[in-house]
């Protein structure tokens, strides 16, 4: 389908378009024109990705400056999906335009997914693959090879050097699979192809970390220009990604390993001194002059890069007392020993970085400045020593990262030492958390650097939370509703059991047998009436386990068993994927199954239950975070102090975004249908925090039901859904063909003209009767207030 938005010709690879897609594209275009950031909430299953891509590609191709698109997504599967969409889009464009545009689109993921080296690719862990690859591709390895020494190299990597650096791969869109195939054919490393081609791409699709984690971003995303369009898709968890990218945990075990690493380094230095002292001397000379990696033009093989953000990098020479290799090693040893003594403390400590540094200085005479250079100095040393078994130094690297971070950031971070694993544990097993509290720190450079950052997801309500937490301004914040020809999903809030007893996962009553039984009834009812798959979400593993065992005792599971196969998610990802597979099989062969899982687990985030895989989703209890966690407490306090977000406000926002994610799992398109049940009394008040598209479908009469009422409503709904239904009925209402679009545009135009006319009239005469907008958006409140009244 082909249409114009203002003057921009857009090619949309489907014959029909949803109204909300059109609106979404209009807003995107406005944002790009204005040059600013935006937050957009688009209902799940309405083709967000394809609208995004087709608009931005159209925009790129239409404008001469061809702004690059950086599309960030969360998981591998999402990246692959986006690449496939892009490929289809470009194919469609070629067909429509009649010629092939000069265009490159590439996806980038870790080496683990892209490696072709016969032995390296068989490694299980990503970091080992990285490390082994580095030891095959590092600059000095190549030098050695050239000198004629017998070293192992990777042919896939070396073949790349034979090609022109800007033309490693022909134009076009390359899915990850395509890239792998091409690499195998041409004997080229797909990973490095993608990395090196990034400056020459029109569209780059990769994971958040490549932009947010300073350790990676420094290496991968450094050269991207300012006018890039950055998109964070599925961004409802972006604050957590930001925080994680700057946080680090140390354990006794990792410290022990780090000590081993230091001792190894020490030995290596002594060795090198006797065989090749010149190299160390060279490094030393370079450090003295403060030459910063002048020769590292292509530092893609760097062992690690500085974990701090580019703005915070210290741009001066390495301090004198860690210039010599042996001094630096002693320095590291001392630091690790200090950390070990800290770990011996048997009570919880939470400490700010300045106070930590003070204590450190008192005890070990380590100053802040050399500490800041730790990561960089270590990288330089590792390179000088030409270490090949880099994976052994991982824990040491972690310690160095920690050192650099704690010496760089004074505020927004906290150090928490937890000596015991749990409240009841008696044997100490300490963890030192260095935790970032401020999500804005990691993402700030992105906002500063790129002129347009688009943050979008299916569930981002309340929208203004994100600009607040991440500390940026937006051009547009918008939440779209879902246009439906028939009501294809039924959200309900269940507040009572059939016996009128309140149901809630609230702390006081969560283990109350009557509450548990009511939840059990809810499950049995819905298992009885739902065809195919049922997905149940619990707030936590702990709670899920206790409920399941209680249900077992009450005989509820036996009843459920008669209707559905019961499967459970566990923290173990392999077990869970097996459970999922079984679940799918059971749904496919008609019996159906019920999957019990956790609202913050893997299933709730990445797995879609489209069509018969999920007809009902039950959200049992509000998925609040575990508030006793010290890290969370610290973060809450920080949010209140800095951004004036109250504890409850944040907790409830966080719970609701997870709940909404869970609900969104079952509705993956407009021809899909499903029932969404929120089973907790507290949901009633939190209704207004659901995404707009769910809110809009949640009728008042369904906002406080008992279990049997809900079951009756669900039955009626399913009966309605079973009426044969053709796509034709959606035409013009929830999907638009070209004519509908033209009609809509005409209507908009007329309205625009009318508005302008009215404005003109208003300006001419009556200035007095300007209608005051209701600043509180009155209608949002009345239901909740009334609902609260009957407490």
């Amino acid at each position, binding site marked *: 389908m082909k249409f114009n938005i203002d003057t921009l010709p857009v090619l949309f690879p489907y014959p029909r378009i949803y109204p909300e897609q059109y609106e979404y594209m209009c807003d995107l275009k406005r944002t790009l024109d204005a040059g600013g950031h935006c937050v957009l909430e688009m209902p799940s299953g309405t083709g967000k990705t394809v609208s995004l891509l087709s608009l931005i590609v159209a925009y790129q191709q239409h404008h001469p400056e061809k702004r690059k698109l950086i599309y960030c997504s969360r998981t591998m599967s999402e990246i692959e999906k986006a690449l496939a969409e892009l490929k289809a889009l470009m194919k469609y464009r070629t067909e429509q335009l009649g010629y092939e545009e000069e265009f490159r689109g590439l996806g980038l993921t870790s080496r683990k997914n892209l490696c072709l080296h016969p032995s390296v690719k068989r490694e299980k862990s990503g970091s080992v693959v990285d490390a082994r690859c580095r030891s095959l591709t590092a600059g000095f390895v190549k030098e050695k090879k050239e000198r004629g020494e017998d070293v192992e190299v990777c042919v896939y990597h070396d073949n790349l050097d034979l090609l022109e650096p800007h033309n490693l791969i022909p134009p076009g869109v390359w899915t990850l699979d395509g890239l792998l195939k091409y690499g195998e054919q041409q004997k080229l490393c797909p990973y490095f192809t993608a990395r090196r081609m990034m400056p020459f791409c029109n569209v780059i699709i990769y994971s958040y970390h490549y932009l947010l984690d300073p350790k990676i971003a420094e290496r991968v995303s450094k050269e991207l220009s300012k006018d890039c369009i950055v998109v964070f898709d599925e961004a409802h968890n972006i604050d957590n990604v930001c925080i994680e990218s700057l946080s680090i945990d140390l354990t006794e*075990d*990792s410290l022990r390993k780090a000590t081993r690493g230091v001792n190894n380094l020490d030995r290596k230095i002594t060795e090198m001194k006797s065989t090749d002292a010149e190299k160390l001397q060279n490094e030393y000379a370079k450090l003295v002059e403060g030459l910063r990696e002048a020769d590292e033009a292509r530092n893609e093989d760097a062992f690690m890069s500085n974990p701090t953000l580019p703005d915070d990098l210290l741009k001066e020479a390495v301090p*004198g007392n860690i210039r010599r290799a042996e001094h630096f090693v002693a320095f590291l040893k001392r630091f690790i020993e200090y950390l070990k003594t800290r770990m011996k403390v048997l009570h919880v400590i939470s400490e700010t970085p300045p106070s930590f540094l003070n204590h450190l200085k008192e005890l070990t005479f380590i100053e802040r400045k050399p500490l800041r250079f730790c990561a960089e100095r270590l990288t330089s040393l590792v390179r000088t020593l030409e270490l090949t078994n880099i994976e052994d130094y991982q824990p040491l690297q972690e310690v160095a990262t920690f050192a650099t971070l704690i010496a760089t950031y004074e505020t927004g971070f906290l150090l928490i030492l937890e000596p015991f*694993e749990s409240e009841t544990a008696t044997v100490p097993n300490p*963890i030192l958390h260095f935790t970032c509290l401020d999500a804005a720190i990691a993402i700030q450079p992105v906002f500063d650097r790129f002129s347009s950052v688009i943050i979008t997801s299916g569930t981002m309500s309340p929208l203004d939370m994100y600009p607040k937490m991440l500390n940026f301004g937006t051009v547009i914040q918008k939440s779209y509703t879902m246009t439906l020809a028939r009501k294809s999903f039924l959200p309900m809030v269940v507040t009572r059991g059939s016996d009128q007893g309140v149901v809630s996962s609230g702390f006081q009553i969560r283990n109350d047998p009557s509450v548990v039984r009511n939840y059990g009834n809810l499950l049995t009812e819905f298992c009885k009436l739902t065809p195919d798959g049922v997905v149940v979400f619990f707030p936590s593993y702990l709670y899920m386990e206790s409920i399941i065992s209680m249900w077992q005792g009450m005989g509820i599971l036996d009843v459920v068993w008669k209707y559905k196969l019961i499967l459970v998610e566990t923290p173990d990802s392999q077990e869970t994927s097996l459970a999922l597979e079984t679940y799918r099989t059971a749904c496919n062969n008609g019996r159906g199954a019920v999957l019990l899982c956790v609202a913050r687990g893997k299933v709730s985030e990445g797995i879609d239950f489209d069509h018969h895989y999920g007809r009902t989703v039950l959200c049992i209890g509000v998925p609040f975070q575990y508030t006793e966690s010290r890290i969370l407490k610290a973060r809450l306090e920080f949010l209140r102090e800095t951004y004036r977000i109250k504890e409850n406000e944040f907790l409830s926002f966080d719970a609701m975004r997870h709940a909404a994610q869970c609900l969104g799992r079952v509705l993956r398109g407009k021809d899909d249908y499903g029932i969404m049940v929120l089973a907790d009394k507290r949901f009633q008040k939190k209704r207004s925090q659901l995404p707009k598209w769910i809110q809009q479908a949640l009728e008042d009469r369904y906002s406080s039901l008992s279990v049997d009422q809900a079951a009756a409503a669900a039955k009626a709904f399913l009966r309605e859904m079973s009426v044969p239904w053709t796509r034709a009925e959606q035409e013009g209402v929830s999907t638009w063909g070209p004519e509908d679009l033209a009609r809509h545009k005409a209507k908009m135009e007329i309205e625009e003209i009318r508005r302008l006319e009215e404005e003109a009239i208003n300006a001419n005469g009556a200035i007095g009767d300007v209608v005051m907008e209701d600043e509180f958006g009155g209608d949002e409140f009345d239901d909740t207030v009334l609902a*609260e009244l009957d407490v």
Partner: protein
Amino acid sequence: MSRAAQRSGATPSKRLAEDGDICPVCKSSRYLNPNMRFLVNPECYHKMCESCVDRIFSHGPAPCPIAGCRRTLRKAKFRKQTFEDIQVEREVDIRRRMAKTFNRREDDFVSLLDYNDYLEKVENFTWNLINGVDIEETEKTIAAYAEENRREISRNESVAAQEAQSRKARAAEELELIRLRREDARREDELERREKADMRRGIINKLATTDGDAASIAREGQRVVLKKSLARRAAIDKQRDNDPFAASTENGEASSGLIFKGLKKWVPPAPEKPYDPFGGWSVENEYFVLQDHYDWDWLSQAQTDIRHTAGGYDVNDYCARALCEAFSGFGVFIEDEVAGRNVGSAPSIATAAAAVTGSEKPDVNMDDIF
């Protein structure tokens, strides 16, 4: 950074095994005596258990019982080990001593490179001491340096102490501020809750007494509360923004020097000049020079006569005064002044005096202060 903290299951047992070692002197192990504590003496850093220390050193200094170590140890010097690695323990002791002597700071140096060179040299000395290289020579240099730079060392010491103090004060202040803010937040929450309850009661009352539309009454009530809370929030925000919390001081790093190149010359601040009430205006005579001595018989007598000098009589004063009177009026042209006065805009004498005082050059007109 992976957040997944891998707590390995084997850790706790390992930890026990590590700590449960045996006293090298009496061979008793922690396994038998769980309360056993190990002590070290910074003389030789040989580890032994508390009871051995009591036993051997209670009656005064004694040689170390460890074979091959003949050092004499005193009980008072024994202390608990801070670091697991005894090597590090020793190193830190050495560093403590070094840090006392070499406490130059970055601003003592002309350039960063010099400072870094200084740091490296110090590190080299420390390294020598730790690893027992050229100990004697190093010690000698260090002692000489300490002697030479006694003043700078103590100065830097006091600066460091001051810094530490102010840092401490700042930390305390910050803590207090945080506490206050936390309290504020709590109070605010409380207030809000109470208001909400009031509002609800109000609505119920209204619903009971009037017969308006329930929904609109509720909406009305809600709006009032929202407005209130918004206003309150704004007020609080404003108050917070005025926080006297702007003091952010640089965290300078302290450090130290031998005959280090690139050291900035330390210039003691110039002594403050005495206060000058005339703002630089001096009573220099333009028309005569006061001589030290005038050949004048009856005066020369007065100069030495004890009867005069005892009262404080000074012949020089007399001469000065006499000369001053003799020359007063010189350079004053009354006609000019009068003419100036007639023009009307002439400054009064007083303002003229002020103007003169302001300018550097003394005016003869005003010379006559007596």
